[in-house]
């Protein structure tokens, strides 16, 4: 029978994860496995647990998970491992003992530094900026924020982070928060959104406020959602990895585990058409973050 691979996003309608799924579908087809893709409709750690338990019940062979909350999901994942199910984490890690590998799209440090450097370049290394995050709870957002702040303290003394506002992963909320931020901080030079709905939200706010060019927008986001704003000159650049590749790699890694082709301690891994990836410890590295801008954004469709 076909192997069954179950893949869990943080929120299953989110365009980001849907683009991961596109890559995963491709990998599943190439490998001839059945792919299940289920997760909470809105980010919710408790629901992730229940779905993992359902998968254990069904007896899937591989679970690939983007953990909403490390500790929360790990109990369930350990239970899965006990039943002989192979577990990989992607996008956001679980506790190390609850999965075999983490498919690391980019180190938090890499993302944080890239974003901060890009922001500093756009502002000429001085002035006020603000951050829009998904929720104040999400672990990876906190990580990135930490590295952004570290880079700021280390290299850009003339720049000032004036506020961090949550957007609940909602574009509308990001937009209203950005509007409020701009009027509360008239000297604001840049908005940095570190969740994918946040970037178009901030861009829309800047556009509505008629501050195109005066307040710049950068962030972590999907090319498709931001193309329009990038071409209008509202958003300067979007930083991201190739999400399709992330999904693709996660599935390949999971299946390889199940087939015993990938074992702990390996230092490299070959994933189908994408070639070979480096493994650092138990992290499979996807590579460096990518900067999308006016020049290259039209070459991507996800």
């Amino acid at each position, binding site marked *: 029978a076909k192997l069954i691979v179950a893949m869990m996003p943080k929120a299953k309608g989110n365009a980001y994860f849907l683009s991961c799924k596109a890559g995963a579908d491709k990998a599943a087809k190439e490998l001839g496995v059945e792919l299940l893709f*289920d997760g909470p409709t809105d980010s919710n750690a408790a629901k992730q647990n*229940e*779905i993992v338990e359902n998968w254990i019940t069904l007896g899937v062979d591989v679970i690939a998970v983007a953990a909403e909350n490390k500790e*929360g999901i790990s109990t369930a994942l350990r239970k899965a491992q006990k039943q002989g199910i192979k577990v990989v984490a992607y996008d956001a890690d679980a506790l190390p003992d609850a999965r075999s590998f983490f498919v690391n799209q980019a180190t938090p440090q890499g993302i944080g530094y890239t974003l901060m450097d890009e922001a500093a370049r756009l502002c000429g290394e001085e002035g006020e900026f603000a951050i829009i995050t998904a929720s*104040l709870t999400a672990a990876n957002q906190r990580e990135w924020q930490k590295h952004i702040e570290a880079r700021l303290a280390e290299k850009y003394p003339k720049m000032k982070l004036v506020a961090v506002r949550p957007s609940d992963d909602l574009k509308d909320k990001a937009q209203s928060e950005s509007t409020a931020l701009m009027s509360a901080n008239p000297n604001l030079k840049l908005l940095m959104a570190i969740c994918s709905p946040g970037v178009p939200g901030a861009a829309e706010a800047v556009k509505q406020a008629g501050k195109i060019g005066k307040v710049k927008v950068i962030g972590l986001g999907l090319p498709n959602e931001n193309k329009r704003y990038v071409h209008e000159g509202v958003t300067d650049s979007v930083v991201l990895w190739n999400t399709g590749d992330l999904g693709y790699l996660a599935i390949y890694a999971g299946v390889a585990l199940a087939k015993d082709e990938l074992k702990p301690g390996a230092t490299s891994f070959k994933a189908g058409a994408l070639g070979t990836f480096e493994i650092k410890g138990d992290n499979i590295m996807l590579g460096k973050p990518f900067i999308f801008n006016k020049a290259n954004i039209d070459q991507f469709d996800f």
Partner: protein
Amino acid sequence: MPLNSHPRDWKSAFLRYETLLFVVLVAEWLLFYHYGTSTNRRGLVVGFGTLDRQFDILRHSCEIGLLALALTPVILTAGIDLSVGSLLGLCAILFGKLWHDAGLSIPLAAGLTLVCGALAGGLNAGLITQLRLPPLIVTLGTYSLFRGLAEAITHGSVTYTDFPASFLFLGQERWSGLPTQAWVFLVVGLGMWLLVHRTTFGRSFRAIGFSPEGARYAGLPVERRVALVYVLTGVIAALAALIYTARLGQAKADAGTGYELFAITAVVFGGTSIFGGRGSITGTLLGVAAIAVLKSGLATLPVVIRMNAAEEMSGLLTGALLLLALTGSVLPKLFSTLRTKR
């Protein structure tokens, strides 16, 4: 006519409803047992028919079950408490903070959390009884307030984890054969049953639900009774928060989001009238069980899992069942009025 032979009119009707519910529950269970159990590729028996799954059902329904138990007397007095889910979240956070940040021992922190639950219930109670405000609106306000406080305390982001195993025992282990929290649930359920059906408290809850003015004229301490009901709800929500924390091993500001709706659904599904006065703890227990089995059972059906929609399906069916139960409850009356009209 012999005076003793007359059946209690509404009570017998409810007995019938509870029997019906019980039959539904058993049928549900058998159905899932048949279709939801299988042997997986590694040769293990998995699905609904395993003891593990049954224990999971118990574990997963404990918190909502506790809230439903607490809400039954509230709804009997013709009140409502929308704030229970938020209060669960707030109490989970308080517990985490007391233990982790204030460095208290687990029992002390748990005790203080229960006190906080009582105080929060007391806030609802005070506003409802002292100012005679409608419970729906008061608890709508505290629904926001409690959740907001939980977020404010944790800045929305702090998650308390690493609880000692002795505490996690409450939520993840077994004691005398059953999951530990199931024992807590049984004890609270029995206590509630005695309170509602065997003491004058329960009697006065009903009287208040039917006619608060009438109860006041009969000399019943209406305000005190209503206050008791809300404070009790606060305490039980705090207890549910402890169990929730122990089950998931973490305390976070979003704990228990939406639980109020599930709890109310279970109570109403269990036959308690939202207008007050009528209802029973037995009904609530059956309602909780029916919903929990449905939810868990659906998730063991391979078809449903392959549709990637276990969660949605059980939500949909719960809502639809509630509508059905409501409609069913009025249909006989409706038919009889239609007939007399003709």
